[in-house]
């Protein structure tokens, strides 16, 4: 295998040498740009392909080739194609991934290149999620954010009505205390108030952590970033842990599940509530048995209702030969009406102000109004800007949090792991 890795590296070098020599297209020949999309839900793939087709018909001079990527291996695939010097021109990814790529110089700084119309249609809070250091001391905008995810709660309406709990609204959401009480109330016999699917706990915990001001990272005056797990950070950790092991209102066997795995149990009434990303509504709509009534509940409130925002993004590769044309395509792809189509396809929230005002995004049907209202709670999560976050997440935080929620280690031990081992990881990137 080592030989193979080395061989691959060797080939990459060869490929990098050859990549830059291909001649640019003649002036009257159509320009070809590659667009790698990570859409995976059926409706979303359809929406993506339809928009590309529309563009290709309207712009014979700039032809876009649709390439299907996958969230499962996008990071490794992009790293290799960046190193080979032959990345897709337009790259679909999400904001946590951009920091590392921007730092390594793979992505084009779009600061002064985004057309004014697109720029003003997307609020500054969303632009903040794609603003990173360029690895040389400067700052830049490395993508156009277009779909955002917030954490909401999906509830079984019949069970909630039966328990006679207050129905929260975006203006007056449940607090975490209320949520804990209600979860206890809904726990009866074999059924639990809530299920926390924690197969990938890190982003969820860090995004919710902001409810109590938990940032998990701090940067000192010299620009050195370290991990921080203080009182604010412990709040959400402790509260979820309490539900699992003290109140026993959350099903511990759901811990190993991915986001969509508890759905069958949810339909069967085994869990009354699921804290999930807004996109999961699509699966509920599609799979829930006839007559199953459900509602989307607004995000919980701690000290605030603020959540870390993760946005999906479109970026342009530094190695792209047609950056201008790529940006033109992005501006078309992400205009207001098109963002509505993409948001509907992925069941996520559009960043475009115009799109957010579209009736399709504010209808009460399938909880779109609650979901769209949660956009105002989204703020930039500090972890987005941390160089080395990905390694911290997979090497340190994921195992530590999984062990903590499984009650194998205490909160103090978890905090110590996150900080000590975490700082060691970050050290490599501070060099």
């Amino acid at each position, binding site marked *: 295998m*080592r*030989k193979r890795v080395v*061989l691959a590296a060797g080939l990459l070098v060869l490929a990098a040498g050859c990549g830059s020599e291909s001649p640019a297209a003649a002036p009257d020949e159509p320009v070809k740009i590659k667009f790698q999309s990570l859409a995976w839900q059926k409706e979303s793939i359809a929406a993506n392909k339809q928009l590309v087709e529309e563009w290709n018909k309207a712009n014979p001079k700039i032809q876009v080739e649709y390439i299907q990527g996958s969230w499962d291996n996008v990071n490794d695939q992009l*790293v290799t194609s*960046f190193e080979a010097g032959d990345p897709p021109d337009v790259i679909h990814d999400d904001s946590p991934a951009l920091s590392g790529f921007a730092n*390594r110089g793979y992505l084009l700084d779009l600061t002064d290149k985004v057309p004014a119309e697109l720029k003003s249609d997307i609020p500054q809070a969303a632009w903040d999620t794609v603003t990173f250091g360029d690895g040389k001391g400067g700052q830049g905008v490395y993508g156009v954010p277009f779909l955002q995810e917030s954490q909401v709660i999906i509830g079984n309406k019949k069970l909630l009505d039966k328990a006679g709990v207050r129905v929260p609204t975006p203006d007056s959401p449940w607090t975490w205390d209320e949520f804990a009480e209600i979860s206890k109330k809904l726990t009866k016999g074999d059924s639990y108030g809530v299920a926390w699917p924690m197969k990938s706990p890190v982003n969820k915990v860090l995004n919710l952590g902001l409810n109590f001001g938990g940032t998990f990272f701090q940067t000192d005056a010299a620009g050195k970033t370290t991990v921080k797990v203080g009182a604010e950070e412990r709040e959400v950790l402790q509260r979820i842990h309490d539900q699992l092991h003290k109140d026993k209102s959350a099903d511990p066997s759901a811990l*190993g599940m991915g986001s969509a795995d508890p759905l069958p149990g949810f339909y069967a009434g085994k869990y009354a509530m699921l804290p999930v990303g807004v996109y999961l509504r699509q699966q509920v709509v599609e799979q829930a048995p006839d007559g199953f009534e459900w509602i989307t509940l607004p995000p919980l409130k701690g000290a605030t209702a603020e959540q870390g925002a993760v946005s999906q993004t479109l970026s342009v590769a530094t190695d792209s030969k047609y950056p201008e044309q790529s940006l033109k395509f992005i501006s078309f792809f992400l205009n207001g009406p098109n963002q509505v189509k993409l948001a509907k396809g992925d069941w996520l929230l559009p960043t475009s102000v115009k799109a957010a005002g579209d009736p399709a995004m504010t209808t009460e049907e399938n909880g779109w109004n609650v979901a769209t209202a949660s956009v105002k709670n989204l703020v930039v999560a500090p972890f987005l800007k941390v160089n*080395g976050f990905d390694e911290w997440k997979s090497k340190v935080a994921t195992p530590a949090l999984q062990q903590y929620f*499984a009650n194998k280690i205490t909160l103090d031990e978890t905090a110590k792991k996150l900080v000590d081992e975490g700082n060691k990881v970050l050290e490599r990137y501070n060099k």
Partner: protein
Amino acid sequence: MTLTADRPVRTAPPKKPRKGGRQGREALLLMLPALVPVLVFSVGPLLYGIFLAFTDARSGRNAVTSFVGLSNFGDLLSDGDFWASFRIGMIWAVSVTVLQFLASLGLALLLNQEMRFRGFARVLAMVPWAMPPVVIGLMWRLVYHPDAGILNSMLGTEIDWLNDFSIALPAVIVVGIWTGMPQTTVVLLAGLQGVPKELYEAVEVDGAGVWRRFWNITLPQLRPVIVAITSLDFVWNINQFGLVYVLTQGGPGGQTRLPMLFAYEEAFRYGFFGYAATLGVAIVIVVLAVLGVYLWRQMREAS
């Protein structure tokens, strides 16, 4: 005459090596077509990989690579994650190799018996060999699936085999054993067929039972084959990548992160090419050391 007789005497000593040199050059010329691919695709990258191990090469357009000497090796020795991965790698390689050998020996003995449908059974035993590791991984992922998996429905359990901290590694080891059995079985079967029948006939005259025949004839006769296949299996297993990458990607929480997966992550996930190359070099050293000791002991016992 004297001249002609003299000449060979004087020129013979320097001529011989020159002639040999010409022959060597010709041989080299003939070997060249075969050597070039080996040099370009095997030796070159290998040397490049070893060179990388002494640099801080990392991904990035603005990354500057510089020579750092042995500092990567120092980092490696103090890297807890590496040692955890190394430990998992050793558990994996040793247990897969040993269990694979035992299972294959049983299977080979069975297939060596006179029985009905022997040819068919032999073909059947080869099936896993025909499958690429990725397909095997996908297939077993379905077998282990917590809800839809055939294993849970057969046992009536609700275990998430590949995501449980303590079960994941054993579950992956079982797949590893299954995957490597055909190669080992074929080699052992060939070895069994090479054992002279006369030996069995001789001990049968002495009234030896099945167990004695196995212990005193089969095993000693198979010895060279066993040594060869177990050492090859060990190298294959410690370098296993595709299977585990598809099955668990090293999860849960790094419980199945074999050394090669660790190296892959370092290089292609986090972008530390130099460090990943160091890992590769370290594993080569370990494999050579383990094999050296093992083969040396086997040979000493054999002689």
